[in-house]
């Protein structure tokens, strides 16, 4: 999943971005409100984390413009303003969650995860297809009861394909949601990653294929493989 994190304090932005990336998210971050708004217009993010007091453009203004443009991407406000009035105002403006500084990273990651599931209308953190099971909360993948060890990027790719189960996902969409703006994937990077993922989730020659290729369109994990 790809996130946007807009926070003007570099001393917060850097460690939180590290934590999010380490948790398998593709993260774009900025300390400026206007730049954040431009990034929102250029990319389709799965979750947005916004500070309220931002130079250039206020976090509330970014959210207002986002919702006015019909963008329903879940937004989490991360701010030092903790009064009930501020929380209520933020939520009424269309924010999906509100977390006050200082916060536990685990809590932030859990909330981001919930918001990511909400984007794909999933309630359970466990995504299942056939004998393959991915736990978004525990960050584990099991197949036929056996735990598989995936790199964060392969985990993110599998998670994204499972969240879009039954839908053909184009290479561009995968690039958009798995890679952040600092990575400029070559055209075959996605194919290579999918190939690596297929190998990683195949236990034996008898294992049923989970990821199918739709030529010229992309990849799909069918509802019933």
């Amino acid at each position, binding site marked *: 999943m790809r996130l946007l994190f807009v926070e*003007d*304090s570099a*001393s*917060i932005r*850097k*460690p*939180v971005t*590290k*934590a999010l990336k*380490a948790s398998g998210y593709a993260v774009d971050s900025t*300390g400026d409100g206007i730049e954040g708004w431009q990034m929102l217009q250029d990319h389709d993010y799965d979750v947005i984390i916004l500070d309220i*007091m*931002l*130079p250039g453009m*206020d976090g509330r203004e970014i959210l207002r413009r986002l919702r006015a443009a019909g963008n329903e991407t879940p937004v989490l406000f991360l701010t*030092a*303003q*903790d*009064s009930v009035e501020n929380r209520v105002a933020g939520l009424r403006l269309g924010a999906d969650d509100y977390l*006050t*500084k*200082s*916060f*536990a*990273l*685990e809590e932030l990651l859990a909330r981001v995860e919930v918001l990511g599931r909400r984007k794909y209308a999933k309630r359970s953190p466990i995504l299942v297809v056939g004998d393959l099971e991915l736990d978004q909360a525990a960050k584990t993948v099991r197949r036929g009861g056996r735990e598989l060890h995936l790199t964060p990027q392969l985990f993110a790719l599998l998670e994204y394909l499972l969240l879009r189960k039954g839908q053909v996902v184009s290479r561009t969409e995968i690039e958009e949601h798995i890679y952040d703006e600092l990575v400029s994937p070559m055209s075959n990077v996605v194919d290579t990653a999918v190939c690596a993922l297929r190998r990683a989730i195949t236990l034996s020659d008898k294992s049923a294929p989970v990821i199918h290729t739709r030529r010229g369109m992309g990849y799909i994990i069918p509802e019933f493989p």
Partner: protein
Amino acid sequence: MRSIRVQLLGWLLPGFVLVCTVAIFGVYYSAQQAIEADLDARLSRLAGSARLALRNQTTAGTGASRGPGLRAFVAKEEFQSPGQYFELWTSTGEPERRSPNLGNADLPPPPKSMHDAIRYNGTLRDGERVRVSTMQYPQGGGNPPLAFAVALSRREGEARLSRLLTDLAIGGIGCCAVLCLLSALALKVAMRPLAQVGEKAAAMGAGSLHERFDAEAMPSEIAPLVARLNDLMARLEQGFERERRFSGYLAHELRTPLAAIRATSEVAAKWPEQSSPDDFHEITQATMRLQQTVDSLLLLSRVETASADVTSQPVELSALVEECLTLHLDRAKQRELTFDLQHDPSLIVETDPHLLRIIVSNLIANATDYAPQGTAIVIAATNGDPFLRVGNPAPDLTSEDIPHLFDRLWRKDATRSDAAHAGLGLSIASSCAVALELVLTAELGESGTLQMSLHSKK
């Protein structure tokens, strides 16, 4: 508790009773005078009739014997029943003729020896009160004058007066009761705005300080009070708003470095391979920023309670200014700022040097940090009022910002992105000035120059 309503009613009710009583007595007295006048008029007419009867008698007869004229007069129907009386006395004072309704009784004699016609009140033997008119009738032929009297009963007049008195008493009591009721109602209506103000004030809380009393709907007597209440509410609202802003700023100033420390350390603990020496530098920076904010807040708190510890001594102001200036020379050089120092080297002020140093240092630091690069800062320490001025160009400031300059943690940059300042320097300087019984003011000149001035309260 003293009640205005009870006080007003305490004055009004006896007043109404007094006015009604006086009115009743006035009406009663007037009626009594009218009845007396009517009685006397009737008595005059009766006396005239009696005199006419006596004259007819004396011209018809020879004087000594009273003939049919007087008999006919006395035989009138009015003299047959009580109400109207007549009596004639001989010149020796013996009763000679009475109206039949007197029987053997005499009319009450006049109170003194009679020389002329007089009127008086008297009581008949049966207790009936009468108005008597007695006069002399001269007889011709050298005979002494005859005395006669006519009388009219006062019963009817007194009965009318009695009825009138009863009516007036009932009317007076009724009038007093109605007036009291009306007064109570009027007071209740008149006092309603006060009660409404009280109810609204009681319902007000920290969340409704934006509300105001409707002064225009109030009676003119209460309107000034309500206007003052509205002023008080406005000041309270400003105070609450200032405190709310302060809480928000403080939350930001304390939580942002705390969040940075926590996030950085948690990432380092959970993903050690991701951490680097830069992270520890970030933690140190955030800790220092936090410490700076806390130290400034503690200093502000100490200064605000420092009034009792102020020690006064002669201080060379220009030397103190130069001492503070040297602390900021590096920063000024870095930003290509120049100082225009106008000072009187002999100027001595009687004050606390520690607190004055904090003021001067903060004013110079503020000017050094916020003056545009390459501009000049004017510092004037002269023997006048103000005795210290620090001026610098401030193109970003507006006149709306000036009242907030001394607010704790206020910053022009609402996003508070600049971690180098907390927004406490001018608050500390202002509090120090208060502790020294000085006044620190800020003015924005037309050319966009911010002028901070330190005045003596005197």
